[in-house]
């Protein structure tokens, strides 16, 4: 990769960084002078992200190119991944209310942009080292963002997030060193070549498990899920939405790439002899994580009183479904996971956008009581989002689950994953319906209209469109992903 | 044929429903009565004319046929026709219906609902008797239960609810058995038309295939036995035959007297008719095999029922059990007809004409008896026989007519009961001497029961209850005259009925003798 190629490939990232810095400078400069500084910074970030998205779009037709160490991958999947992450970031940013009484500090916008930057980089690398750096960049930004409410609870949530993240990072780094030791490379292809035909030794197994720990943290899968409920609950709403959506997308794209490129020696196509490095090794780790996540996430969600905690536990469950797609170890499985994670991200932001109605301090589920009579459009939108999360056709969430299961059933060893997944989804119906019960069945205590800010409306509209369009016509997204992966 | 006879039986069956429709719109209860009476009279005249035309045209064994597919999938057809077998029950229904309406004339509780239900019942009864396809038949067969159920439920005595429930459920259980058996039969034969079932001599050879049927579809002999008894028991509930009769005393004592007239007069004949129509043609070999046993069952029913009647204290109970005794004779005759080669065909002819005469004559006399029972209960305010006495003194006309009816029922020569019972005994005696002997013993007990009853009610001192009894009103006389007239008419000139029954004999001889 030549230098000018590198620069043009990195243009979106560079622009994002520049615009983030400008926003920070403007914010700091004007903080004391203008009352409306928050709005200015907000719109600057929005515009910055928009331009970043457009820059990504210009690369749409680029074929996949990379350097020797696969530090940066441009074109192909990276374009799609960046685009999705930027759009998700934009939609989350729309949830911010710069005119609210309790304003977020100026550094929010900067950190939000750097977190996005980290995620974009995560999604466009095939090198463990670069992946680690990107992951840390996004994580560190998110730790701080979580704590921006400046209260005790917020600090606690952030601290949990940080501690667990640090531990996971340490594990990951440790695991990376083992893998590096065995395979002699940090790039995914290098690892695959280095490990071809290798039997799974204790060291390699430890490396695999430790690396997975880092990923598990990022995607909120059991056993590194503990941060999720607290963080979701206490972080500022746009940040929660951001963590739930974009962060997950980035994590899964990186994990998928890692498994597909490094996990499976090329040419073996996923079916290696018993005990040899390849699917058989990863299958067990990922299956265990998937089963544990589905069961734990769905069961724990049942008793929740807080809407955000419920979404957090359900997110753990969804991580399990996403892992089923990866467990099949095929490109088709990766397509299924990509489809799933994209529509999931939009549905979950949609759900957050509904509770952005007003300052809902103790976001209890019964706070949604009587939403139907107060704000019918919001109620119906929430119906769509929740049902999509629950996997009811014809919404996108259903087809996502369906496709993941279809892919998994190509491999008879994964039948039990599908069975567990279906079981989990029946449980999930219970708590999702329980949410909708408050919205549609219960009467409101008061008749006052709920204030639903414009930004939240727009983001809900975008999410609604995505969930409906990709639900009714899943092949639109599916074929795009397949096409892009083939480049 | 002419307009008059096109769709004749369909019109006949459904004219009463037109009466129901008119009843729905008129208001006064008198108008309702008049309309109902007119309807039944119209039906009667129309039907009798049809029967006379039918009897005149001897060449046609099956007249006024209408045949339309109903559910082609199972060969269920709308199939009506008049032949020797159903002519007599149809005539009986036609004649008795106006009498029942007249009998109900003085019932103050009878209103629009009552008379409408009566008319619906008439439709159902005519449908049952004219149907020649099992599906068609069954539709009306079950329909007969519903109006009677509600008539008992609405207008019956103190224990009407239990009586109605028992009546309905017993009969229904029987008909479900019948239904199931016929379904199995349809599976093996592929037809539900009685004419085809009879005409082909369906189960001619039980083990053999039917013409045009698959070889696989043979009725296994064990199944044939099951079907035979299933159908027999299903119908025996309706007849009823001991020990399947326990609905009968309740229903006959609790239903309003007019409804009992209909039940004992016509409905109990459905069972007899169905035995001839539904069971007789099916299994000639099994018929012959089981005929003695059926004769024993009939004899048992005859003797047990009348012995029970001997013990009973209430008028209607006595009549109910004696009614069971009389239909027992029909079953005895039926057993004889079943007899196959063991019974000579002249004996069969005797028994069969006896059966049909008994159907008719019992229909008339039993209806008459229950009418009197109703009058007495109402005027004397008691149901017990012991409550009455000296009726001869207070109501001479009533006593006279009541006496005629009782003697007709006993079988006094010159009255209707004699001819039929004579014919039956004449037919059965040569082949089933023991069964007939037992039945004859029953006959003697019947005489005993009725004479005792007469002595008790007609003679002796006038009891306080009897004092209030006044003699028949003109309306009641009008009601009774046709019945009494028929009792004498059949007793003295049974030829028209025998003539009608001849057709049946030919049909059945043709079918069974093959």
């Amino acid at each position, binding site marked *: 990769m030549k230098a000018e190629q590198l620069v043009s490939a990195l243009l979106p990232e560079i622009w994002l960084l520049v615009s983030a810095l400008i926003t920070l400078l403007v914010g700091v400069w004007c903080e004391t002078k203008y009352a409306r500084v928050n709005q200015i910074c907000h719109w600057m970030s929005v515009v910055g992200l928009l331009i970043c998205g457009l820059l990504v779009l210009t690369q749409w037709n680029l074929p996949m190119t990379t350097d020797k160490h696969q530090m940066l991958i441009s074109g192909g999947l990276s374009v799609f991944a960046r685009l999705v992450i930027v759009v998700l970031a934009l939609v989350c940013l729309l949830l911010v209310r710069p005119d609210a009484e309790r304003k977020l500090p100026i550094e929010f916008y900067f950190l939000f942009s750097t977190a996005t930057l980290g995620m974009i980089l995560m999604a466009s690398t095939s090198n463990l080292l670069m992946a680690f750096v990107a992951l840390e960049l996004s994580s560190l930004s998110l730790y701080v963002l979580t704590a921006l409410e400046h209260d005790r609870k917020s600090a606690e949530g952030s601290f949990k997030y940080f501690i667990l993240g640090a531990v996971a990072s340490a594990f990951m780094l440790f695991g990376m060193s083992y893998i590096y030791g065995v395979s002699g490379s940090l790039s995914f292809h290098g690892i695959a070549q280095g490990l071809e035909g290798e039997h799974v030794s204790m060291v390699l197994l430890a490396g695999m498990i430790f690396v997975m720990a880092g990923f598990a943290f990022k995607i909120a899968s059991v056993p590194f899920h503990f941060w999720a409920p607290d963080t979701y609950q206490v972080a500022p709403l746009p940040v929660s939405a951001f963590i739930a959506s974009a962060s997950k997308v980035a994590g899964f794209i990186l994990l998928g790439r890692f498994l597909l490129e490094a996990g499976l020696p090329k040419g073996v196509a996923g079916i290696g002899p018993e005990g040899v490095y390849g699917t058989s090794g990863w299958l067990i780790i990922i299956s265990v994580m998937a089963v544990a996540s589905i069961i734990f996430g769905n069961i724990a969600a049942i008793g929740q009183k807080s809407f955000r905690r419920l979404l957090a536990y359900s997110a753990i469950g969804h991580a399990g479904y996403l892992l089923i797609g990866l467990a099949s170890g095929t490109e088709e499985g990766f397509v299924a996971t990509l489809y799933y994670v994209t529509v999931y991200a939009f549905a979950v932001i949609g759900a957050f956008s509904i509770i952005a109605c007003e300052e809902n301090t103790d976001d209890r589920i019964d706070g949604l009581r009587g939403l139907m009579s107060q704000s019918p459009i919001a109620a119906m939108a929430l119906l769509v989002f929740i049902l999509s999360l629950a996997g009811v*056709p014809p919404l996108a969430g259903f087809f996502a689950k369906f496709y993941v299961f279809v892919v998994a059933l190509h491999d008879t060893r994964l039948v039990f994953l599908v069975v567990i997944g279906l079981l989990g989804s029946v449980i999930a119906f219970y708590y999702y319906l329980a949410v909708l019960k408050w919205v549609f069945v219960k009467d409101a205590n008061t008749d006052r209209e709920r204030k639903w800010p414009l930004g939240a409306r727009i983001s809900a509209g975008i999410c609604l469109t995505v969930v409906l369009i990709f639900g009714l016509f899943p092949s639109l997204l599916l074929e795009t992903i397949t096409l892009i992966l083939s480049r | 044929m002419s307009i008059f006879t096109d769709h004749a039986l369909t019109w006949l069956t459904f004219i009463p429903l037109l009466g129901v429709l008119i009843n729905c719109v008129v208001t006064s209860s008198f108008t309702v009565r008049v309309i109902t009476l007119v309807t039944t009279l119209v039906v009667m005249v129309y039907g009798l004319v049809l029967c006379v035309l039918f009897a005149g045209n001897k060449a046609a064994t099956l007249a006024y046929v209408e045949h339309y597919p109903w559910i082609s999938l199972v060969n269920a057809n709308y199939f009506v026709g008049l032949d020797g077998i159903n002519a007599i029950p149809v005539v009986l229904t036609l004649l008795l219906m106006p009498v029942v309406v007249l009998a109900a004339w003085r019932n103050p509780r009878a209103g629009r609902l009552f008379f409408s239900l009566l008319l619906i019942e008439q439709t159902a009864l005519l449908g049952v008797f004219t149907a020649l396809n099992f599906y068609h038949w069954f539709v009306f067969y079950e329909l007969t239960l519903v109006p009677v159920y509600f008539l008992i439920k609405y207008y019956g005595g103190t224990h009407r609810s239990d009586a109605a429930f028992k009546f309905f459920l017993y009969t229904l259980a029987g008909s479900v058995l019948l239904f199931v058996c016929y379904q199995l039969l349809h599976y093996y034969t592929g037809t539900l038309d009685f004419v085809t079932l009879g005409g082909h001599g369906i189960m001619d050879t039980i083990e053999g295939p039917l013409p045009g049927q698959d070889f696989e579809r043979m009725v296994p002999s064990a199944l044939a036995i099951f079907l035979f008894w299933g159908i027999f028991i299903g119908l025996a509930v309706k007849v009823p035959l001991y020990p399947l009769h326990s609905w009968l005393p309740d229903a006959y004592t609790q239903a309003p007297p007019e409804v009992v007239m209909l039940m004992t007069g016509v409905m109990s004949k459905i069972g007899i008719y169905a035995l001839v129509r539904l069971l007789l043609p099916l299994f000639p070999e099994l018929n012959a095999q089981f005929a003695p046993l059926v004769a024993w069952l009939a004899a048992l029913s005859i003797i047990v029922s009348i012995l029970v009647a001997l013990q009973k204290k209430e008028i209607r109970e006595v009549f109910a059990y004696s009614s069971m005794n009389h239909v027992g004779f029909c079953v005895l005759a039926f057993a004889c007809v079943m007899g196959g080669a063991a019974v000579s065909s002249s004996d069969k002819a005797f028994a069969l004409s006896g059966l049909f005469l008994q159907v008719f004559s019992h229909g008339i006399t039993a209806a008459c008896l229950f009418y009197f029972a109703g009058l007495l209960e109402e005027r004397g305010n008691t149901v017990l026989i012991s409550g009455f006495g000296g009726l001869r003194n207070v109501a001479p006309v009533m006593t006279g007519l009541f006496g005629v009816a009782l003697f007709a029922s006993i079988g006094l020569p010159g009255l209707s009961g004699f001819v039929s019972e004579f014919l039956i005994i004449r037919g059965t005696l040569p082949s089933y001497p023991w069964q007939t002997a037992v039945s004859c013993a029953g006959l003697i007990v019947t005489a005993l029961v009725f004479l005792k009853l007469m002595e008790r009610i007609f003679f002796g001192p006038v009891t306080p209850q009897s004092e209030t009894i006044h003699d028949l009103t003109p309306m009641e006389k009008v009601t009774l005259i046709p019945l009494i007239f028929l009792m004498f008419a059949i007793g003295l000139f049974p030829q028209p009925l025998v003539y009608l029954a001849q057709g049946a004999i030919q049909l059945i001889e043709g079918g069974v003798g093959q």
Partner: protein
Amino acid sequence: MLAQSTIYLSFIAALLLMTLFRCRSGQCARVFALVISLVLFGLSVWTFCHHQSAAPGYQIETNLEWIPSAGIRYIAGADGVGIVLILLTGIVAVAGVLFSWHIEERAAEFFAFYFLLLGGVYGVFLSVDLFMLFVFYEIAIVPKYFLIARWGSTNREYAAMKLALYSFGGSALVLLGMIALYAELARSGVPTFDLRTLAEIGPNLPLQFQFWCFPLLFTGFAILAGMVPFHTWAPAGHVAAPTAGSMLLAGVVMKLGAYGCLKGALMIMPGALSIPLVIPYIGLEIPRFWFWMFSALAATNILYGAMAALVQKDFKYVIGYSSISHMGFVLIGLMTLNTIGVTGAVVQMFSHGVVASLMFAIVGGMIYQRTHTRDISKLGAFRLRINHPGIAIMFFIGTFAAAGLPGFSGFVAEFLVVRGTAEAFTWMLIPVGLGIIVTFAYTLKFIHLVFWGPHDATVKAPLLPKLKVNEICGGVFLIVILILFGLVPRLLTDVIEKDVTPAVKVMSTHVGGPR
């Protein structure tokens, strides 16, 4: 296109009611709903009439690619079985609106969910693609929850949740079976969900595969059809639901399950019924395992449902359990695998749909809304027979029609099913016959208790409001339908038979042998 317009008209009506009519008065929404339901009824009748003379097979209206990569197509059309159920849906739709006239509270929303449900139901019956069928099947589940939980009575939230979870549980099984089937087909190179293709190649799939895949699909669908032992949602749901909810639930939603059993399980994998279950180690071999299993369960449905109805104290529970019993006739009819039996099952679906709506309309609508009690021992005091002869007559007609009195469509169905049973498994006639007897027993029992029930003659019966026009219209409408199809069953049987006959031929060759 006209048949499909029922689906989209329902959805559009739902959307309009949810948005435009929300703030208007209830009357406005009601009239709108009635108009829409009449149009739906008209469309249903129109398509039904046009189907009458058609050749066997599906009448396809639209056939488009939907998700090409997964071999999923959008194929809308109906065959004889579907068209009968479309007609049924049209009938129940009108009656349901008529019996929801009293709903004042958020009427527009009520009707919105009502039409959403109807759209799903229409969609299922018009799907010729299993995936598409499943999509509509699930769409029909969600509104049920809200209808019951919001506008229901006794224990409504519990019952609604139970119903929804059972339904989703069932559809999870269906989904599993469907995906397994798809994966198996993909292995043999024909990844498709087209019901026509599935019915062609499905029976030739490896028997061992059919053996474990068939019960998933069948049980999954049968849960919604109220098969014992997965029936408990039904009585609870019916009781808690608002009148129109129970009418739709018993009238059409249970038919979705039965329809799925036929189209989604029996017609695709009949081979599963032919093979034995071999229990290893013991050496026990149960021949035709699934065949006997599901037949026995169906017979249990009939008898158990009827016996449970016999001992109920709550009036709506009686109707609920009688529905279970009647659905048993559908299931056993399907399991006979012969033309007469399967035709009978479909006629029973239709007939039970109408009769169950009528009964729920009478019990939940006419009676409960006046007396405000469903306790059978207390209903006698209202002396409905004398004070409300209209209700009494409708109830008598309805309950006897439900019990299968000849002259009503229920009898036709019963006749055909029993005839099919006589052919397929003679012994099953015993429970079926007993079931019929018990059915009449409870019918008579509850006629007596409710209309001749104990009451204190000295106390004047409370004065209850007279029957309203909409109630009379709805009741008479349903009764006329029952009698019409009872007297002229050919209208149904001919159209069903033409499509059942070829299907049964395929099924019976794969099940094969004397039973």
